[in-house]
């Protein structure tokens, strides 16, 4: 009975259409956001920030991007790694060509470049769907990685073929480069994902999000009510790739510090897709849950057996990890396509009725 909507009568449609119509949800989310900004920076050690929280936030942004495209607009993509690479290499080129350009702008512009590339590779979606579209986006993935490997210009002709995050500050605080503290990088990643999660929520509850879901659910009916298929799909590709592009730039600038194309290979595409499936297709919250899950499972598998005195060989832990992911993906695809987000919702519904189960 702690969590319930009884007595909260909505008197206006605006209130009814709010992102979190229930008061407890609003309080919870507000606390979570404030807590996320304050608590880890004060209390988390370097290991937690670097190995868990920063990658979690970056993956969450990428998963959010893919979820808009696949979960909301129904367009399956295996090109996520490629679109993230476009963001990363654009950020690298922009930051080295315009050293005075604010790093926040660099990220946003890199997102725009990725959006353009996403639109180009989204064009086949007008004609092909499902499995065939997945294969077409896979081609995009391989082409983009090949391009970044092949053309020296993208890495400023560095013989090693790596791109490196240059030192840059925001409000006088170093956020990228070798001297940037983990806390600062964490806050930067958090700020981006918080803003873009809010934007995603706004998109999916309004006209644009509805038109995506219409295309996903029944494309013929979508056309009859005036949704233009090509435009709507390309918009989904653009915005999705924008998110993924920024996540890719962050991956190098806020997390890895330097990277080669290997960091963006097909495995990354699958990893982000797993996050979306496990977290919940068509759910903003699910993107976060899925990212958290995939970041935490390997850490769990390395640490827990160790603490109970069991010594798992690294290779075996890796195998178990893959088996868990594989099993869960099958489970969610077959049993609960709405993923962890749906399980969370069911829990909330139970809470709402508690302690009376009717």
């Amino acid at each position, binding site marked *: 009975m702690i969590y319930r909507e009884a007595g909260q009568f909505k008197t206006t*449609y605006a209130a009814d259409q709010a992102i979190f119509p229930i008061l407890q949800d609003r309080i919870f989310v507000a606390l979570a956001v404030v807590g996320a900004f304050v608590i880890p920076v004060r209390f988390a050690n370097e290991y937690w920030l670097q190995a868990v929280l920063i990658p979690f936030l970056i993956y969450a942004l990428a998963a959010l991007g893919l979820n808009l495209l696949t979960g909301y607009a129904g367009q399956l993509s295996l090109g996520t790694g490629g679109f993230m690479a476009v963001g990363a290499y654009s950020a690298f080129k922009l930051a080295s060509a315009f050293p005075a350009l604010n790093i926040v702008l660099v990220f946003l512009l890199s997102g725009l470049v990725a959006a353009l590339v996403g639109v180009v590779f989204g064009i086949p979606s007008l004609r092909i769907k499902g499995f065939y579209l997945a294969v077409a986006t896979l081609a995009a993935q391989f082409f983009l990685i090949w391009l970044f490997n092949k053309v020296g210009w993208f890495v400023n002709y560095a013989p090693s073929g790596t791109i490196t995050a240059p030192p840059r500050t925001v409000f006088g605080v170093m956020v990228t480069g070798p001297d940037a503290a983990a806390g600062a990088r964490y806050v930067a990643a958090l700020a981006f994902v918080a803003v873009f999660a809010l934007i995603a929520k706004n*998109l999916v509850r*309004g*006209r644009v999000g509805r*038109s995506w*879901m*219409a295309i996903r*659910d029944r494309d013929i009916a979508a056309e009859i009510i005036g949704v233009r298929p090509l435009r709507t799909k390309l918009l989904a590709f653009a915005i999705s790739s924008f998110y993924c592009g920024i996540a890719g730039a962050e991956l190098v600038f806020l997390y890895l510090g330097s990277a080669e194309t290997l960091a963006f290979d097909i495995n990354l595409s699958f990893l982000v897709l797993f996050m979306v499936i496990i977290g919940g297709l068509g759910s903003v919250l699910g993107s976060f849950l899925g990212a958290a899950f995939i970041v935490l499972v390997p850490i769990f598998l390395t640490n827990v057996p160790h603490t109970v005195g069991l010594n798992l060989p690294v290779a075996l832990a890796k195998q178990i990890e893959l088996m868990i992911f594989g099993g869960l993906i099958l489970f969610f695809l077959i049993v609960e396509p709405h993923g962890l987000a749906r399980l969370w919702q069911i829990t909330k519904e139970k809470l709402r009725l508690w302690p009376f189960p009717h």
Partner: protein
Amino acid sequence: MSAILEIADVSRSFGGVQAVQKVSVDIPRGEIMSIIGPNGAGKTTVLNMISGFYHPDHGRILLEGTDITHLAPSEIAKLRVARTFQNIALFSGMTVLDNLMLGRHVLMKSGVLSSFIYWGLAQREEVAHRKRVEDLIDFLKIQDLRRRPTGSLAYGLRKRVELGRALALDPKILLLDEPMGGMNQEEKEDMARFILDVNEEWGTTIILIEHDMGVVMDISDRVAVLDMGLKIAEGKPDEVRVNPAVVKAYLGETKTSEVRHG
């Protein structure tokens, strides 16, 4: 009689099948026009050509004097022509409310940038259109279903929600492809009532495809009869009922007449 829609000498074939042959029908503004005929007569094909899914091989379709023969479905929706499908095409993963809001898609303007921010333009627009959608929800008596995903609804209710989505466009012309197909008697009567109310309250022109002759004769102002792609009769219900060509077409088609009485 001023026609809101003129179907002029329209033909369409699929491979070797001549689905519609040189059919001409004028649809008078504000009336309920039924299109009847045995299975495979070409009725759905006519609706598909009006709504832009298929384009005729020959002939023209004029909406209020403007040629719409080759427009895309989304452009025809903008001209306020709405429709329902013979085998329901709702957005099954979305709620009733979202389905109806989608019906107003072309009447809304907010694009990506205003949606990013939401507060302001996009929100005002959502609220304004929500009001109209709520009126329709009341009209169709589906208040309890607002938040239900349409995929979870019973068949008859899904048909009703699909009518709601079409009405959400505030259509000038409403195309209904067998809105009572597969319904029981009570559901049929409700649906017939809604159709009459829409026509009377908002003056909406309605083109209705229906197999139930009782309903057709009751609610139509005019009836056009297709058989094997040809228009074999047109007129007031009483005239069409006794037309020898119509009687012959129907007597020759025992299968559909069984369905009708069953």
